[in-house]
């Protein structure tokens, strides 16, 4: 029997693993005087539930099985079965298929974004906010497909804008490098 949704299986197993780790770890937490659960109670429940739901998800990932319409997941007959909740607040899951797209260029882009943040964390305090931002923004824009001149221009304007708003108006101490910017 092969899993229909491998991603779900992975997610479910991760949830089980994490929940188990939490359960094991909270046994080291102290109890309230009188032997009643204290700090361990809430995380313990969370861990246990993660195991339960992780198992459900893992089992479900093997396909619908006998009762295809069993789960009354809201609203089952509406268009695009998106996975959202809350307010006008976060992204609709644009159907199951596009999720599976592992576009190589896209992943490189994502890595670039993450790399840029890490680079900022490491470098900004050393050489200052302005140079770091201009370089990172320019490189990112260029990587994403902007023409080099436009990238530099936009990077400079954005950095200038942020510097004015945050450093001058809001008085946030953005890191200053050896040049004082």
């Amino acid at each position, binding site marked *: 029997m092969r899993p229909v949704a491998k991603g779900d299986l992975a997610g479910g197993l991760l949830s089980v693993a994490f929940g188990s780790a939490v359960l094991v770890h909270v046994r080291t937490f102290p109890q309230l005087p009188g032997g009643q659960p204290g700090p361990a109670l809430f995380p313990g429940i969370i861990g246990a539930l993660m195991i339960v739901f992780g198992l459900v998800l893992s089992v479900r990932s093997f396909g619908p099985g006998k009762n295809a319409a069993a789960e009354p997941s809201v609203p089952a007959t509406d268009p695009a*079965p998106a996975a959202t909740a*809350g307010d006008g607040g976060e992204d609709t899951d644009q159907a199951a298929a596009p999720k599976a797209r592992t576009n190589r260029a896209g992943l490189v882009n994502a890595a670039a974004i993450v790399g840029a943040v890490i680079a900022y964390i490491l470098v900004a305090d050393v050489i200052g906010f302005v140079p770091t931002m201009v370089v990172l923004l320019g490189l990112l824009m260029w990587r994403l497909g902007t023409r080099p001149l436009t990238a530099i221009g936009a990077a400079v304007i954005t950095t200038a804008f942020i510097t004015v708003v945050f450093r001058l108006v*809001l008085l946030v101490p953005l890191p200053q490098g050896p040049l004082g910017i």
Partner: protein
Amino acid sequence: MLNDLGQALTMLADTTLIIAVLGSAIYGLFIGAIPGLSATLATALLVPITFFLPPLPAIASIVTMSAMAIFAGDVPSALVRMPGTPASAAYTEDAYRLTHSGKGGLVLGVGLVGSAIGGIAGALVLMAAARLLAEVALLFTSFEYFWVAVLGLTASVVISRGSQVKGSIALLIGLFLSTIGLDITLGYARFTFGSTVLLQGISFIPAMVGLFGLSEVLRNVTDPRASASSARIDPYGMFAETRKTLRRYWRRVVSGNVIGSAIGILPGAGGDIAAWVSYAATKNTSKDAHKFGKGEGHIEPVVSAGSSNNSALASAYVPTLVLGIPGDTITAILIGVLFVKGVQPGPELFEQQPSLLYAVYMVFILANLLLLPLGYLAIRGSGMLLRVPRNVLMPIILAFCIVGAFAINNGTFQIVVMLALGILGYALDRGGFPLAPVVLGIVLGPIVEQNFMQSVIKTNWDLTQFFTRPISATLMVLTMLVLAYPFLQHGLRRLLRHGTR
């Protein structure tokens, strides 16, 4: 009361507030109109700036921004079939088809006026309900707060669309994150692994910026959606058509507002859910249901769902202001801001600072009135808005994420938190897990735990009080009803379908 009203008006006549409102209005229209950038993202990015404003302008910016963004989401959904915000997703198909048969002006006109009406209606509900709830809330003890928080958690998972299992796991992740730090009972450091920075828990605002900001950027660069479009809306004759349509379907306007306000008040459920429920309700009770979402589309669900999401936005402030329990993800973020500013939501707010509340109500009305002229301009300029190049926009948003996370505490650690939550948010979304329950878990987790612990310690583990206190019992029944909602939905739908055959 007149004295407070007068004071509220003076508070509104402040330059900072006016600039903040106008700025956030434009900002909201901009972000709302771009597919893939949600109103929660807009809030998360705006928060680091509102952090530096006094409480009223801060709230006013968020209120204005969200009202604009929720309307602006209709524009790309009509033009390119991509909702600008999830709140417009329910009626995107109809809006798009209508636009393509030449009725774009009508669609957006209805969206605009419907949104404004929805927002004002929601604000009126907010004023009335908040007052009522505040009276009741004075009787609330830790038992009642526990149940309201649980209600919020339940609603965010059950009423959300898609897999409840994944929603629950997302919620549990949020709840877990909220346990990091010193615990309420013994002050024991949980899950900090020796780090002193984590003692106070995950910094909320950087976490939000990461979860909704950075993850959105990551999503956009890995799965780019087409933004260039040559479609244009011809607004000529728009308002006359709009008036006729709204008059014809006035019952839908009313039902949309009722549903929107009801769902908005429910903690954890917000605008996009309200729109979906409204859409479904309209479809189940309309003679023209077969025309919805097909062929040329139909304006009826646009009318009802379009006003629903705006009224839900306003009524979400009822539990937020009265109980400190967020009505949706935007107010969840807002609560974080309010706490930092020392504005303690709760019934005392109604006693101690009534003028602040009146000012907030007025901002709501003002923002929705402002929506009319500004929204109209946005419709005229919609072609331009959709052509903003992603490859320039995404790094700019990233820059704001980094600076925003840093600005809260001037700490590099906050940027790390932002990065971690951003990657988490991206991974969750990729796997089809909803993000809103994560936020609600983070915000409501401490409320659930603290109130539970206080209750049991107070009464020496007498658990019966959770069920025997009258208000607690009522809230518990409400929670059960929400849990039963999917099953009820099935039954209701079958009933209504048989009725209209």
